[in-house]
Structures are given as structure tokens and as C-alpha cells.
């Protein structure tokens, strides 16, 4: 039973080779990013980006830690938003997707089509902004970073709905219903534990989307205490871009104090690291071989 065939071994070897190649391509640019953030600024401008810094300089990071008040605060905001947003997102999406599978209940088919429809048609930023500012009044609050656009996407709903339909045996649910369990009990005690791979999937996607989102901050937040770290980075970049392309019209604005190339690299590294560290947390849910044994009997 535990003897592995030659073929299995070959498969695993092929797997390792492919993975190592992919990992190499994946990590190389990241190493370049780190390398350029610790290179001396003048060297980067003169000679470009190299894997091994010609001259070390932690100046860029010194600048960041000098601004720690602002950057640290942005971190905090991003973490709060990401954690709560991801949790809420998983809950709402899964509840909705589970309910959709009860096609005999009136209204579920309509709701599903309405959900699909949202993937295809969009009211546009003007109308969305108007809705969230004037109807819902969440402008300049932390909810503006959590709610608009991110809490439930049709894509995730479809993924979860299909997973539940295809991977959770109907007999299991029937057995529970015959034992007198209601849908809510089934949901919490049966569906959630058995759907961990897909929950981890949409959780990871949700976390990444929340972490990387800067558009919500751009539109709804003017209070600098509520800036997320991506918004900070993006604002810096777009300001710099604006000013450089209009330098002719600026007269004697002193551009030498703008965050330079290496600083922007350092900020990018700082912005990525935490999300990198959360992946292992989700990773354990992708463990192989979930045996569903309860059906027998």
C-alpha cells in the first residue's frame, strides 16, 4: 500500500523540477527589488538596478523609519481593514453562496442571476461615489475602506457555490436534515468545516485585494489618519509623476526633497512583507486528502 510505483516517483520528480523553476522566476525580481532598496541612490540612478548592490545604503529605510509615525499608522489601518474585511467577506460570501444552492426555495434563482449580472454591468465611479457619500454616508470613515466593492464579489460567490455543490455530498446534508438539523446549523457545523480549502482560497484572495487596494482610499478618504499603506505609496508616486511631467511650469519648486527611486523601492518592500507572512497561515488549509468518512453507514 505504501510502495510507491516508479511512475509516482517520476511524477514527483517532475513536480519538483517544475516548482523549482517557477520559484526561481518568482523570486528573482523580488530579490532585485530588495537589492535596489538597499543600494546607494546615486549608484541606482547612474548605473541602474543590479542584483548585488555596488554600494550599500540604508538611507531609504532610514527615511521610512523617520516617517514611522505616518507609515506605522498606515500599517495599522491596513491591517485592521484587511483582517476585518476578509473575515466579513468570507462570512457574507459563503452564507450567500450556500443559500443559493437551495434552488427549490423561491427567489434563489433570481438572486443568482442578479449576482451574475453585477459582474457584467457597473454603474461607474460617479454613481458609486454618490451612493456611498450621500446615501450611505461612510465617506472618511474606516468603513469606506471595507465596504465598497470588496466585500462580496460575484466571482467568489460562484466559486464557493460550485465548490459546495460539487464537493460536499448531498447525502451528508440529507442525513443531517433527517436528524432534524436546520439550514443554519448545517451551515455552521457542516459546511464551514468541510469547505476549508475554498474558504482559504477566497480568504486569501480577499486579503490580497484588501491589502493592495488604494482606490477606495483615493476616492473616499481625505483624513490622513485613515490612509492605508498602498494609498500612501500610490499618492507619493502619482504626485511625483505629476510634478516631474509639469516641471517646466513649476518654477522654483525644489524637487530635490521628493522621495527618490530607492525610497519608493523601500516603501514597496515594506508594503509587501506583511501580506507575504500571512500566506503560510492560509496554507495549512490546502493540505491534501480530506477524507469524508461520515457517509459510510
Amino acid at each position, binding site marked *: 500500500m505504501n510502495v510507491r510505483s516508479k511512475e*509516482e516517483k517520476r511524477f514527483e520528480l517532475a513536480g519538483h523540477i517544475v516548482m523549482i523553476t517557477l520559484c526561481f522566476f518568482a523570486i528573482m525580481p523580488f530579490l532585485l527589488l530588495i537589492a535596489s532598496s538597499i543600494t546607494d541612490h546615486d549608484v541606482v540612478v547612474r548605473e541602474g538596478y543590479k542584483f548585488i548592490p555596488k554600494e550599500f545604503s540604508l538611507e531609504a529605510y532610514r527615511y521610512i523609519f523617520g516617517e514611522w509615525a505616518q507609515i506605522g499608522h498606515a500599517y495599522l489601518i491596513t491591517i485592521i481593514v484587511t483582517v476585518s474585511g476578509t473575515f466579513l467577506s468570507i462570512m457574507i460570501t459563503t452564507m450567500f453562496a450556500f443559500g443559493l444552492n437551495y434552488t427549490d*426555495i423561491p427567489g434563489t434563482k433570481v*438572486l*443568482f442571476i442578479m449576482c451574475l449580472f453585477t459582474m457584467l454591468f457597473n*454603474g461607474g465611479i460617479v454613481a458609486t461615489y454618490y451612493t456611498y457619500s450621500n446615501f450611505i454616508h461612510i465617506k472618511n470613515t474606516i468603513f469606506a475602506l471595507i465596504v465598497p466593492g470588496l466585500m462580496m464579489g460575484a466571482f467568489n460567490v460562484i466559486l464557493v457555490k*460550485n465548490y459546495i*455543490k*460539487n464537493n460536499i455530498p448531498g447525502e451528508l446534508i440529507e442525513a443531517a436534515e433527517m436528524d432534524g438539523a436546520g439550514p443554519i446549523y448545517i451551515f455552521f457545523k457542516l459546511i464551514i468545516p468541510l469547505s476549508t480549502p475554498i474558504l482559504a482560497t477566497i480568504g486569501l484572495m480577499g486579503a490580497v485585494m484588501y491589502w493592495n487596494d488604494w482606490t477606495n482610499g483615493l476616492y473616499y478618504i481625505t483624513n490622513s489618519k485613515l490612509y492605508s499603506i498602498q494609498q500612501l*505609496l500610490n499618492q507619493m508616486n502619482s504626485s511625483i509623476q505629476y510634478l516631474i511631467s509639469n516641471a517646466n511650469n513649476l518654477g522654483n519648486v525644489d524637487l530635490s526633497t521628493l522621495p527618490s527611486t530607492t525610497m519608493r523601492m523601500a516603501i514597496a518592500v515594506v508594503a509587501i512583507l506583511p501580506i507575504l507572512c500571512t500566506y503560510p497561515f492560509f496554507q495549512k488549509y490546502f493540505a491534501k*486528502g480530506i477524507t469524508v468518512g461520515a457517509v459510510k453507514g
Partner: protein
Amino acid sequence: MDTAKKRKKIRWKKALPIYLLLLPGTIYMLINNYLPMFGIIIAFKNINFKKGIFGSDWAGFDNFKFLFSSGNAWLMTRNTILYNLVFIILGIVIPITVAILMNEIRSKIANRIYQTLILLPFLMSWVVISYLGYAFLSLETGYINDSILKAFGKPPIDFYQDKTWWPLIIIFVHQWKGIGFGMVIYLASVVGISQDYFEAAKIDGATKWQQIKSITLPCLKPTIITLFILNLGRMFYSDFGLFYQLPRNSGMLYGATQTIDTFVYNALMVQNNYGMSSAASVYQSIVGFILVVLANETIKRISREDAMF
């Protein structure tokens, strides 16, 4: 009479909790997506904020004209469609292969390391990736020109002015960024396939190949079809970061990198016209809608239970 009443009661008892579960999602959908739907009419109006959105004059299809009157109209549409077709095909073949292979690797530590690293590009923002692209492709100091080509004695390639390499570059970078994501989605399904099936197959003497062909792939079929239909709906959309930030919006590359989205963005950087941006969005939506409906109908005729609606 009594049994009919009883049946209705039972129905309600079951239906109410389900409506409860559906409630948060429904409210969210209505607020986030349906309330702002009125914004679609902006595409058909000559918007004047003094009169407000509803008071502005109707413009018919005027706002759509700029999409077709540019000399590049056909070029950008062609680029968008061709790239998306390639992405859809690659997006099915490659992530599934990787997911299946990943599932075969026994060492847990190796698993974790591989998955984390492969996912790394997915987590990066496009601004950062464009810097890195520059680090590799820049004429003077880029890694490729400076270290690789020089070592072979070949002349440097001006990547940002010469569009011949860009279809390859774009496809490569798109896969590089997306493999982790695709792998994760398919991996979740692969991992969810009950081990009993595989053990039964092994007992019957099936080879690894046969197991994959007859168990893994069919179990993935619903996911593949769903993703296929959804991607069809995005046929006229493109990843803005990939087509605008990576090529640094270099004009000489437009032949290979301009898509509908980048064209609209450039046009609106100048005129900031909400009517036109809304028109572009409606244009993309309608095409996507038609494609999704067509695809779904086709799939319905082939295997009914895999269709989406």
C-alpha cells in the same frame, strides 16, 4: 386541507433560515451594485453638473464615437481579444498542471515553500512590477542588455521602443503574476477530491496518468467551465497594470500593447469626460454580456448541469 397547510408550514420553516443566510449578501449587492446602476445613463448623456445627472441633455450615442473614430480602434480591439484568448487557454492548461503536480509532492515543507514563492508575484502591485520590468529591460542598465546580451556579444535591444518582443513579454509577465492565483483556485478543488476515489483506482491498477485523466480532470470540469465562461465575460477588458504600467505607456509599443482600457485611460487623462468613460464601460459590458449568454447557452446544450444559469 390539513396536509396542504402542513406542507406550507414546513416550507416556511425551511425557507426562513435560508432567507436569513441570503440577507446580508442581498443587502450588500443592492447597495453596492444596484443602487449605483443609474450611473449607466451617464454614457448616453452630455453631462452638465449644473443640471445634475438626470437633468443633463441626452447625447444619444455621441459619447461612443471616440471609441471608433480613432485610427487605432481596430488595433486596440484586436489586441484586447487576441491577448485574452491566449490568456484563457494558458490560464486553463498551466495552473491545472501546476496544481496537480503540487498535489503530488509529499514533503509538507517543500509544499509550503513552493506555494509561498510561486504566489509571491501575485502579491506585488503593478507599480512595483513596472520598476522591476525596467530593471530588466532598460536599454542602458537593464539586466538583459547589460549582463546577458553583453556576455554573448550581441547588440542591445531597445525594448521600450521596439514592439517586436512585447507580445512575448506581456504573456510571460501575465503568467508569471497569475500562476500562483490560478494554482490556488484549482488546488482547492484538487485537494477536495476524496481520497477514496484514488485508492479505489489504485486497487484497480490504474496508472498515475489514468488517475488524473479519469478522476482529477472530470472533478475539475465544473470549475474549468465556470472560469471559462467568466473569463469570456471579461473579453473586452484588460489588466490595466499589465498593458499600461509595464510598458511605461511607451507610444512606440502601442501596436502591441494598446488595449481598449489603455486607450480610454489616455483619452480621458486629457479630457476627463465622464460621459465618455461611462460609454467605454458600457461598450465593454455589453460585449461581455453577450459572450457570457452565448457561452452559457452553448454549454447548456452540451452538458446541462455544468451551465451557470
